[in-house]
């Protein structure tokens, strides 16, 4: 009988356009929007690009040493600068059009810089790098001024040391995972899809309670055990969001080629447990007596989006700010716990943190299921 109930409930869900839209189509469309908006963002924000610069020489100073320095920085090997020697007016025009990062004005054998005000972090760091390079030039001149002009050997040795472009720092591997923080948006998207399982849970509660739907009335008259009915409906309600999440993960990972980090099977496991949480939330809200259906829908949409917002769906990094102020909110918010589990799969070598998150989700499921079961188990209705 369990399989019979399961099969027919599943058929109902697959025929429900609303569930299909919210749980399957909406996350796929939003994932595509995220991809369109974010796939270039980290590169623009954090990665180094050759710095375009205009050089203006305001007097007849000897440019030989400075030009050699700029040429070394612009060489194919270093590729730090892309220099254009030009006039002051042309340089100002290039700067105003944001075609260059800054202007280097070489006057009295000393370089000075002109920048445009910027609100871009990347441009600001590029400006700082440019200033750093000019600082280095001035500082190198200062070191050379300590050498007696006749002492050519020392002079050559210092020039060789300063010009060798040595790197004293070796890089250690941070993680095997993906450190792109835009990934948080995709984790929140998966969490949101899990929470949208609440629509499925809500209709499950509707179909089980006689005072909410005709199907509920019919089911109450059935000779099948109440527990079998509840379990059959519940598992069918969970199946659809789990399938939707699997489709979403496959779409993100293999079609949009977003590296979600971590083992795909464990990501799917997290999404599956998260989907059950979503269904339980819907079941719980759906089982609350005395609230209108439209209001329940409103509560579910708004709460799913709000919890997803708190996990970073709309403003990246918000959960870390919450963690600093009210960490308990993150522990109670299932969307954040789901994103934490996905994050730990991506970043850490061990699975301790991951299993802690899964345990929190499991406890939440048990609490919500118990409360919902208490509301929808054997109920007697007054004779009218």
């Amino acid at each position, binding site marked *: 009988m369990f399989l019979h109930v399961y099969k027919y409930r599943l058929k109902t869900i697959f025929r429900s356009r*609303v569930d299909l*839209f*919210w749980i399957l189509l*909406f996350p796929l*469309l*939003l994932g595509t*929007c995220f991809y*369109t*908006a974010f796939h*270039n*963002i980290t590169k*623009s*924000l*954090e990665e*180094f690009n050759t710095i375009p610069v205009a050089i203006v020489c305001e007097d007849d100073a000897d440019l030989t040493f400075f030009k050699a320095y700029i040429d070394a920085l612009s060489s194919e090997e270093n590729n730090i600068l892309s220099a254009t020697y030009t006039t002051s007016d042309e340089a100002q025009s290039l*700067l105003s059009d944001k075609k260059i990062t800054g202007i280097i004005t070489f006057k009295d054998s000393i*370089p*000075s*810089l*002109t*920048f*445009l*005000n910027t*609100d871009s972090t990347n441009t*600001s*760091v590029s*400006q*700082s*790098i440019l200033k*750093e390079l000019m*600082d*280095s030039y*001035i*500082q190198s001149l200062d070191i050379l001024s*300590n050498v007696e002009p006749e002492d050519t050997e*020392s002079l050559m*040795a*210092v020039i060789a*040391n300063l010009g*060798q472009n*040595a*790197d*004293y*720092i070796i*890089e*250690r591997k*941070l993680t095997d995972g993906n*450190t792109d*923080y835009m990934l948080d948006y995709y984790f929140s998207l998966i969490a949101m899809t899990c929470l949208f399982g609440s629509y499925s849970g809500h209709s499950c509660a509707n179909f089980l309670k006689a005072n909410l739907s005709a199907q509920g009335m019919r089911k109450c008259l059935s000779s099948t055990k109440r527990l079998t009915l509840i379990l059959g409906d519940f598992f069918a309600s969970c199946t659809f969001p789990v399938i939707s999440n699997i489709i979403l993960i496959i779409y993100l990972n293999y079609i949009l080629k977003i590296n979600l980090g971590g083992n795909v099977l464990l990501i799917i496991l997290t999404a599956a447990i998260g989907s059950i949480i979503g269904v339980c939330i819907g079941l719980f809200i759906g089982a609350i007596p005395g609230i209108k259906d*439209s209001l329940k829908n*409103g509560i579910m949409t*708004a709460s799913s*989006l709000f919890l997803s*917002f708190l996990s970073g769906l*709309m*403003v990246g990094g*918000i959960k870390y700010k919450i963690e600093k102020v009210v960490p308990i909110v993150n522990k109670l918010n299932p969307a954040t716990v789901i994103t934490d589990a996905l*994050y730990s799969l991506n*970043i850490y070598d061990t699975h301790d*943190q991951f299993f802690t998150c899964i345990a929190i989700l499991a406890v939440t499921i048990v609490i919500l299921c118990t409360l919902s079961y208490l509301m929808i188990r054997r109920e007697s209705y007054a004779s009218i």
Partner: protein
Amino acid sequence: MQVFKTYFKVAKKHLGAFFIYSFIFLVLLNLFVSQKTDNPENFKTSKIKVSVFDHDHSNLSSSLISFIDENHEIVKMDEDIDTIRDKMYIRDVEYVLIIPEGFEKNIISSGNAAASELAQHNTDKSLNENPYQLESFKFPNSVSAIFIQSQINKFINIYSSYMILGYDADTANTKTLETLTLEAKANITASQSEEISVSHVYYTYICYILISSIVLCIAPIIIVFNKDEIKRRTNLSCVSPFKKNLCIAFASFFFMLIILFLFVGISFIMAGNEMTTGIGMVRIFNTFVNAVMCLSFAFLLATFVTNENLLGFITNFFGLASSFLCGIFVDRQFLGKTVLNFSKILPAHWYMNIELELTKYEKLSEFTNSTVKTLTYGFVIQLLFAVAMFAAGMVISKTKKSA
């Protein structure tokens, strides 16, 4: 008047959902506004968030750390790989430097060796036969890492140069710090004012909030009036369909104004004086035009959507997609040209055009001809969207009636 009253009776039944949405949206708005950042007025060298773990505890390592501290923000944390990963992933730390034990000893011995080679007239020998003295954690090809690494390498280069010149360790250290104080002059040219104001942040995000709140509050009421049973009953009454539709339109407009006043009122509380300027008034007018477009969208949806869930789906998708593609949630500088060109088919693109143009000015009198043109285009195109949606709604409803 009867239809008008009935409209608000139905609206009253939807007030629960309206208050939930409004409350959550206001919380979201406040959180969005609190995310705002300040823009520097003078050139300041960027400060990178760095963590340094010193295992050497020498004079040289202390000098290096104080040099980093002067130029960047040192963040303290435990030297544990998972903590480093956590802090770096959320960009609380952008670069981690590990100074190993024996760092100073190695540099001094290499320096002395290079100096003695020089004394033996061998200028080919330099300090760095084995240059890897320090260790780091960084993001691949990160601009911040390139910046700070160039400074650290420069510090060691200058120090080693003084060592090569025969100075002892302490003098080389002092002279290095002296040399590092020399800087190139840097100026910022006066560009357009791009200071981020509270009103700008508020009126950027309100575009997302408005579409959700207006459509999700008004469309369900119109859907009730469009239900076949109710429509048939109203058609039997003495109120003409034209008058009924006019009343519904007027009531919807009135309800839209209430929602608009609520959000605009809050902006006066949050942004204060910014809203009483001419620019503030243009922002309000832009929001009003956008609200009219949202109302038309609500009308259009109400003509063919009968299910509130589907309504929620379409509205949320439209709102979120507009926000991501038109530069509300993501700064436009990060969106590709194709995305920006595509977003022109969305009304939010034109709303944001006006909003971004307004950030350049403090007074209406400063407006240039091109600004007036941008503003006019923005208003007209948003209104055209409103007219197009309203017309589409009318066509659908006529088609339904004739069917």
